[in-house]
């Protein structure tokens, strides 16, 4: 009888202690407000162990239902579950403390941080409640409260852990490489930025900020009160005021911080992340210089070679069965079909260098049979003429065409228009005129056209003759 009352007193004390801790946890965010300002360094130092310790309670909690269920047939495991639950509570409290130190010490704020924090507090209180109700359940007195509470704890755990993961890896970590149909289903309508879709900002500036800055200055983490995930937020600036001064790159804080020496404490991107590329900095600078507009589509002086994306290389069919015919061509005519690589689907190169002088339109026409397999035709210095375009138009997989120093005049170049794979065309040293090459403009994938030493050559830039080295010294 005495022992029983003793146990009851202990139970009461435990409940009171749990209540006190729970109230404290709920009050914590009001006592130590997460105001986005960094605090003591020792808090950050300890806080940075949060990502390490946080996995401990996760492990214990996941183990718990496993032990409880397995314990139905093996009672010893159920006994162990009580111990694991106690460990889970202890590690929850520990991880929560460190997590709070991390957020408070480094001045983290933002909805993502808040969600993670509240998730952790609710989870910890839930685990505490589990500890209190479990004895009644294991003695068989109350059968439903503990299982229901445990299920709730598990769901809270998943949600809280996901919030934490989004903080450290970015909110698109899980969806970034998700197959597109699934993605559309999970996150419809992402990525509006408050700027014109074809503007220089949307095309070039936003992607740079997105890749380098938004993990700390975005929706889930708002360091320094600054968000860079939309045009409006970028122009609004942060705690230290505006980061973009339109027309004045020198005074724009954003540009200043990314161009500091990397050893500087204020250098961005912080924490050892890779610095912005020189050309990215140059684009941001030019964009600010010219008014930091949300609508301008082009920035004078910046020509970003992005053109159309490289067309995906189409594999040619397997030509292995034609090898004897290919070899006969080489020994007969002298012009060779050379494999691009050991992979037959990479295609063949038509190589004429050994017989250039005698290789003309008639010889080229004999390669008709291999047309779909030829990805590159080296016809430089050969005797081919404009008549060759009829044959070449059948080379449907042609990617590179060399016609330098040949007699072509460009009449009929338009016949090459169906060659959707063609990216390289060398007409150097021929007699093509600008009128003759005009039809090429319609070939969207054709990005390298060489017209050196032709009437069509754009006004030749004078050869730079820099001043001699001896003139300037330290």
């Amino acid at each position, binding site marked *: 009888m005495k022992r029983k009352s003793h146990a009851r007193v202990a139970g009461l004390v435990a409940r009171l202690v749990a209540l006190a801790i729970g109230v404290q946890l709920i009050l914590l965010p009001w006592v130590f407000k997460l105001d986005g300002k960094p605090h003591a360094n020792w808090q950050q130092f300890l806080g940075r162990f949060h990502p390490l310790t946080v996995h401990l309670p996760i492990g214990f909690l996941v183990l718990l239902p496993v032990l409880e269920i397995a314990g139905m047939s093996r009672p010893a495991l159920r006994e162990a579950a009580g111990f694991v639950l106690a460990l889970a509570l202890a590690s929850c409290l520990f991880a929560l403390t460190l997590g709070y130190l991390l957020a408070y010490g480094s001045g983290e704020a933002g909805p993502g941080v808040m969600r993670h924090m509240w998730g952790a507090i609710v989870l910890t209180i839930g685990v505490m409640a589990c500890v209190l109700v479990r004895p009644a359940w294991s003695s068989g007195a109350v059968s439903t409260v503990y299982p229901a509470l445990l299920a709730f704890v598990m769901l809270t755990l998943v949600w809280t852990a996901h919030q934490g993961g989004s903080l450290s890896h970015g909110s698109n970590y899980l969806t970034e490489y998700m197959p597109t149909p699934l993605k559309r289903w999970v996150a419809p309508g992402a990525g509006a930025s408050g700027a014109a879709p074809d503007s220089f900002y949307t095309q070039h500036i936003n992607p740079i900020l997105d890749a380098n800055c938004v993990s700390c200055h975005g929706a889930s983490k708002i360091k320094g009160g600054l968000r860079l995930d939309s045009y409006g937020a970028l122009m609004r600036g942060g705690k230290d005021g505006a980061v973009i001064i339109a027309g004045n790159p020198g005074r724009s804080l954003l540009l200043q911080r990314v161009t500091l020496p990397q050893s500087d404490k204020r250098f961005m991107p912080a924490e050892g992340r890779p610095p912005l590329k020189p050309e990215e900095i140059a684009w941001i600078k030019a964009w600010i210089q010219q008014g930091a507009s949300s609508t301008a589509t082009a920035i004078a002086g910046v020509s970003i070679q992005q053109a159309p994306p490289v067309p995906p290389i189409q594999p040619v069919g397997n030509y292995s069965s034609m090898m004897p015919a290919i070899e006969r061509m080489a020994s007969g005519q002298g012009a060779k079909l050379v*494999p691009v690589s050991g992979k037959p689907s990479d295609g063949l190169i038509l*190589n004429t260098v*050994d017989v250039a002088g005698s290789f003309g339109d008639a010889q080229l026409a004999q390669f008709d049979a291999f047309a779909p397999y030829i990805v590159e035709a080296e016809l430089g210095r050969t005797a081919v003429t404009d008549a060759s375009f009829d044959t070449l138009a059948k080379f449907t997989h042609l990617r590179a065409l060399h016609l330098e120093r040949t007699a072509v005049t460009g009449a009929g170049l338009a016949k090459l228009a169906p060659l959707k794979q063609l990216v390289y065309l060398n007409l*150097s040293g021929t007699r093509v005129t600008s009128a003759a090459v005009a039809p090429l403009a319609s070939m969207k994938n054709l990005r390298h056209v060489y017209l*050196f030493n032709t009437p069509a050559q754009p006004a030749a830039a004078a050869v730079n003759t820099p001043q*001699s*080295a001896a003139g300037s*010294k330290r």
Partner: protein
Amino acid sequence: MKQHPLCTDCEQSADVMSMPIPAGLKQEWAAIETRRRFLGRSGKVLGWAALANLLGERGLRGDAHAEAPPQAGPASRQQLKQPFFAPKAKRAIYLFMSGGPPQMDLLDYKPKLAALYNQDLPDSVRGTQQLTGMTAGQAHFPIAPSHWAFKRYGKSGTWVSDLLPYTAQMVDDLTIVKTTSTDAINHEPAIMLMNTGNMNAGKPCLGSWLSYGLGSMNDNLPTFMVLQTKVNAKENNQPVSSRLWSSGFLSSEYAGVGLRSGGDPVLYLSDPNGVDRAVRRKMLDAVEALNRQTMTELGDPETNARIAQYEMAYRMQASVPELADLSKEPQSTWDLYGPDAKEPGTFAYNCLLARRMAERDVRFTQIYKRGWDVHGDVTGVLPILCSETDRGCYALITDLKRRGLLDDTLVIWAGEFGRTVYSQGGLTPDNYGRDHHPNCFTTWMTGGGVQPGITYGETDEYSYNVVRDPVPVRDFNATILHCLGIDHNRLTYEFQGLDQKLTGTTPANVVQGLLA
């Protein structure tokens, strides 16, 4: 069996064992006999081995239609002579700056050094770094800031020394590697390591591996050509030997063919008076018949190499004069390369030849420029070296670019090591010297396969140690091979029981950060 014409006594000899001579002599005779037989037989065995090698595995197994095993493992014979995967570059030009250019005077800008003039290099920076015998005895290691100012150029804002006004114009095309590092500290081992992947002589060089692995694109010119730049006596010229373009244990067909810098590009290439093409052809046919006979008798694969070289020389009699005939070059060429290019043997002339070889699909051209070994008088010698090479480099890249050749040609600029930040010998406000430095040196590449307009890697503020992204020689070479469509782990050749490769036995990596 037919007796070999040179062997007169090996088939029927008197029975020495029955002669009345001392037993010791008999024993010695027996030993000789055994050795002679062994050598005689092994010649034939080697012949069979070579024949089997020539026919390939398929020929011996008789299943000529068998598919080549896909991917992985060393390249089988039928996979050779073509890239493993579609390459970005079909050919390469290697501008070799022999002697070790001083990186902090050219492209590795170190602004903080000016304030440290004549201060000792901190021991913490030098660490346990081995020094050469030339400066190991120095009591002090006074820091010598560069004598020249640096400015930023191009969209990439790359810092370039005033010594390289032409290179400065093309920085947006270059892939600058500031953190190339080597294991050797003296010229010969370092230059061997850079070229052959091994400090000891006897291994094939990069050009030979490329010839072996990719084959020729132009039957009338060698696959691998070497151009030497005329020596300037004012410079400290370290010797450059043919070991650097040797094919090592690969067949000598793959060795580099050097062009001379003056007179006939290839000695004895023109026919002597009274010998016309027909006579030459007849003579070569007769020599070939004799060589084939020797081949069947002795089976030395080098005989085949010799036959191929005679044929190549015959074709070069027509192709080389055409290659070296600059009379049809337009004025724009001379405007670009400058007056030096008209004088055979200068660096600019060699650059122009390299462009002409690229046009003619020579697989690999290597230009050697000696004299970068500036142990002393940096301010006197370095401007000469730069004025000799700067414009040629710029002209070559610009020319390749405007002719549409840079898309599939890889150009490499490198020496065998860098130089020390501290002065060798005395340091005065006007002059200093620099010793060899293996930890970091600056190289660049451009063209097919590499990312233009970037600087890769970072050195400390003394340009003494690598801070970020080191590129050891083996990684540098692996990257070059990658640009040409070769997996450095699969281009191998079994020799002395090892699958030998350019990058050696230490695991090497393609430097992804350099790739386009």
